[in-house]
């Protein structure tokens, strides 16, 4: 399976539909919309498609997809990608939609965190549990150091030159950044709760070599507090089997995985019920005409957070989306088994 490529055009994107979230339901929406000649762009905060299926449980078996007695999260994602290939959707990964405004001409304007603009007639929110964001260690006052001393990702390596860095975690992100930043840091300490690492064995081996050479320090323990002045971190206290120790540090990179937060969706003026978007059960439309919500992010009487429910929602949503995009065209209901028109779109005829 080919990996979807990020589109790197600077100009604004004009399209029929923008789907926010490239999880299984967002991907299937491409199929249902595509059958109705509607073109889609998808935006996802993750660096890959598949949403929770790909991020949380790529290898876990799913047993309740109709027709597939067992399928892993990654396999389901791969199959959906194959299914929507004829409709050639454009993916914008590693991007988060920050703002949504309605224009006077009835279209919507979306802006992402990388400054890209999208203009579209219909928005489909398929954002699941919200945006995946790095987990913030629950240490008192940590918010005050974020962006000045505490970072959850490395955007520019140069920013870390000559710093006294503490990397926390035991997975690939923690180990990869340990190895990349160690040569330019003034000092580097890797902290993990146990002397056992999930990261690739060769990275762990390399890290241990650096420790043996005295070029970095490995500590087994957990952070208990931070101290500093005016947003500038000065030290971190670490609890280990031997007791507590404070080390002088001015930069921390915690890698504790991702969690889902509703994020900017809360500011788009949509009605919300306990962080979910209420929709009707005929069109799955939100309080704002032209904006739909499908999959885990929506709520309605009897809602079940199942992938198969999201697929159904995508199909019904598409009917109404068609009315907005082609107001003058009559919609003829067709089956893929018999319609030569649909089969042509799917490239099978």
């Amino acid at each position, binding site marked *: 399976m080919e990996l979807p490529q990020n589109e790197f055009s600077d100009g604004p994107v004009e399209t029929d539909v923008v789907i926010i979230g490239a999880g299984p339901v967002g991907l299937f929406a491409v199929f249902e919309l595509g059958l109705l000649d509607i073109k889609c762009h998808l935006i996802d905060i993750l660096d890959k498609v598949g949403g*929770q299926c790909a991020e949380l*449980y790529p290898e876990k078996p799913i047993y309740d997809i109709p027709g597939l007695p067992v399928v892993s999260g990654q396999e389901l994602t791969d199959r959906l990608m194959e299914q929507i290939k004829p409709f050639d959707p454009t993916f914008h990964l590693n991007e988060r939609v920050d703002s949504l405004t309605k224009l006077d001409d009835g279209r919507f304007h979306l802006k992402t965190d990388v400054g890209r603009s999208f203009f579209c007639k219909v928005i489909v929110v398929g954002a699941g*549990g919200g945006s995946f964001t790095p*987990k913030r260690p629950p240490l008192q006052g940590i918010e005050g150091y974020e962006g000045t001393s505490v970072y959850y990702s490395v955007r520019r390596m140069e920013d870390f030159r000559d710093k006294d860095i503490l990397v926390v975690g035991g997975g690939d992100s923690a180990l990869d950044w340990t190895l990349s930043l160690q040569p330019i840091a003034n000092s580097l300490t890797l902290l993990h709760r*146990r002397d056992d690492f*999930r990261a690739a064995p060769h990275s762990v081996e390399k890290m241990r070599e650096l420790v043996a050479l005295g070029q970095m320090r490995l500590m087994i323990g*957990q952070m208990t507090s931070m101290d500093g002045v005016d947003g500038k971190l000065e030290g971190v206290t670490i609890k280990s089997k031997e007791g507590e120790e404070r080390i002088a540090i001015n930069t921390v990179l915690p890698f504790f*995985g991702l969690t889902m937060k509703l994020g900017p969706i809360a500011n788009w003026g949509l009605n919300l019920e306990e962080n979910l978007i209420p929709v009707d059960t005929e069109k799955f439309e939100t309080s704002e005409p032209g904006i739909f919500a499908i999959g885990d992010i929506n709520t309605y009487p009897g809602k079940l957070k199942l992938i198969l429910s999201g697929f159904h929602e995508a199909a019904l949503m598409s009917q109404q989306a068609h009315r907005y995009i082609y107001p003058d065209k009559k919609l003829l209901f067709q089956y893929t088994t018999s319609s030569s028109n649909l089969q042509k779109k799917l490239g099978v005829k």
Partner: protein
Amino acid sequence: MAKITFIQPDGTSETVDATVGQTVMEVAKLADVAGIEAECGGACACATCHVYVAEDWREKTGKAAEMEEDMLDFAFDVREESRLSCQIKVTEELDGLIVQVPNKQF
């Protein structure tokens, strides 16, 4: 039937009925026990159902399996007695089990 007691960080506790075969996470979610989030729905993929097993019960609940240990890396304030409650299956033997909910699930 088994009873499971959840102790909150502030010391309050509640004892709820559990059915053999459920996971401790499911028991907590059904009873709306505060502090058990279970963001991934029980797939051992998020570490937001972290609990501390009371001392007398550790032998019966056993130790975390390797995959669960890996997931515990994503929890905070992990201790010797840390488990992910979605990975503890309720058995008759666990009737009376006491677990403590951590200060924060992250």
